[in-house]
């Protein structure tokens, strides 16, 4: 019972560590445009869920003004998966690679207002107690935006780690460690999916051999069964069920799934099919962003 505590939050009990550090409030502006990089130009979108507005741009936008140095390449995209009905589009997402100098690979992934920064160290030396004789030891550290990491973070770390273990070719680097560190910069819904995407981009940036890329997609089901992809924080709160899937790029196989709420078997299949369609767009974005990066250099 030493690590139990309960914190209110609409009646939901959260198990958090009793040791809490006093953390200064991070003054993150909810408007995506106002972030750390001055020359960062990102298109805003109408945030209210289920908007039926036609998207003006499909594919990567030419945001030349965002270039800061040669090593930092940005790619921008707004996507709309096929005709699935209103509110079934992904939010605007953006990715930036190689922004940190110390980790072997780093990436920042932005989905709407949710932003996660990932850093990858590896293959590096591993502690003998954690060493595996025939493959690499993967470690994931997820740090929340405020407070100390708690039990929920541990649970998410396990999910992300198992997803990475499924795709990373650990056998090529036995007795080494590959560490993925994720820092939540802002959380506005679909956090786990954003973490997965950031982790994948960071692993690519680090040059870790993988058998496939992976992406995370979140679906929310509201009380009348309407499906929403990539929900915002408000939509997640009001939804009856929130399902997060990790899919691989080769055959859109299901790598990881975690769900919250009650739903039926048919709804699960429906969400999975929608997630697979949405993942096509995410992978296309990955490809474009990597193409832009390597074609410039």
């Amino acid at each position, binding site marked *: *019972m030493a690590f139990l505590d309960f914190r209110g*939050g609409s*009646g939901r009990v959260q198990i958090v560590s009793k040791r809490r550090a006093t953390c200064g409030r991070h003054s993150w502006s909810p408007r995506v445009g106002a972030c750390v990089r001055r020359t960062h130009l990102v298109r805003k979108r109408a945030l209210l869920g289920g908007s039926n507005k036609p998207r003006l741009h499909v594919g990567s936008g030419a945001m030349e003004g965002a270039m800061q140095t040669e090593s930092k390449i940005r790619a921008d995209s707004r996507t709309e998966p096929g005709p699935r009905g209103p509110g079934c589009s992904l939010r605007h997402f953006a990715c930036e690679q190689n922004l940190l100098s110390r980790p072997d690979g780093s990436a920042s992934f932005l989905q709407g207002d949710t932003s996660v920064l990932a850093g990858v160290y590896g293959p590096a030396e591993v502690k003998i107690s954690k060493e595996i004789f025939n493959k690499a030891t993967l470690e994931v550290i997820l740090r929340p935006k405020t407070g100390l990491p708690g*039990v929920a973070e541990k*649970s998410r770390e396990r999910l992300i780690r*198992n997803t990475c273990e*499924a795709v990373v070719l650990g056998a090529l680097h036995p007795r080494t460690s590959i560490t993925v560190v994720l820092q939540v910069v802002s959380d506005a819904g679909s956090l786990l999916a954003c973490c997965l995407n950031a982790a994948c981009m960071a692993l690519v940036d680090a040059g870790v051999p993988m058998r496939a890329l992976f992406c995370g997609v979140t679906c929310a089901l509201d009380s009348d069964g309407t499906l929403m992809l990539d929900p915002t924080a408000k939509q997640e709160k009001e939804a009856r069920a929130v399902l997060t899937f990790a899919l691989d790029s080769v055959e859109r196989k299901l790598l990881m799934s975690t*769900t919250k709420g*009650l739903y039926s*078997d048919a709804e699960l299949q429906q969400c999975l099919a929608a997630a697979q369609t949405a993942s096509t767009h995410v992978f296309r974005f990955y490809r474009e962003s990597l193409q832009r990066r390597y074609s410039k250099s």
Partner: protein
Amino acid sequence: MRETTLTSSTSTLVHTTLPSTYQKETLGGRTEGGRSEGKGRIFSPVIGSTVLSRTVEPLEYYRRFLKENCRPDGRELGEFRTTTVNVGSIGTADGSSLVKLGNTTVICGIKAEFGAPPTDAPDKGYVVPNVDLSPLCSWRFRSGPPGEEAQVASQFIADVIENSQIIQKEDLCISSGKLAWVLYCDLICLNHDGNILDACTFALLAALKNVQLPEVTINEETALAEVNLKKKSYLNIRTHPVATSFAVFDDTLLIVDPTEEEEHLATGTLTVVMDEEGKLCCLHKPGTHFPSVSVLNM
């Protein structure tokens, strides 16, 4: 038992009597820690020296069984281990249960205490689960702060309680905004032989059904709570979620209720929690390849 044989056979040498009693213990059909005999069928592969193969090449050993659609302990691929439940054994707890899934043993004790309801939900109580995987249950765990597996299991149980709405949190409220029940559920694993999540969910459900809360009235004059220990009532359990865990072997085979050895050898695990109406409360699949989406239809 060993002591009685020594005193009874004073004239005979110790080592002649001990082996026979040892044999009786292991073949007697009692499930001792570490030996599960299933239905008494103990398969052994024909080729080579069996004992060496199990420790040296465990995966190959398992594959020989899986080809015959069975497992080393005699179970079919879709067969659960013998489940035993004992309810209400802990007198000091408000509700308790002991669940054994084969050799996996989990004990759940629930204590009800008073607490203030959260400010944003003044008419709700709390249910606080905690899974404790101590060094007693497996060599893998060390004493100290909860390790990753314990924390993941605690989070899983918290999610199951939240998602399945097993009890209405409003039932736990005594006085809106001032006093509510807090149920501390401690799930302690005594023996870890795989499939800890199923055992914990089952133990929690059994213990919650066993919980008896005394009647509490708020005295208007003194504004103190008066507990009437003589009048106790059971909790209103709305749904009965059941967890089923599977181990995925070689991306193609699904095995129900894996033992610890099978969990280590498997390429992945999958846990599904369903309630009586067939609604899914939780689909927990922490990574590794899955054969196809259609396999989820079960």
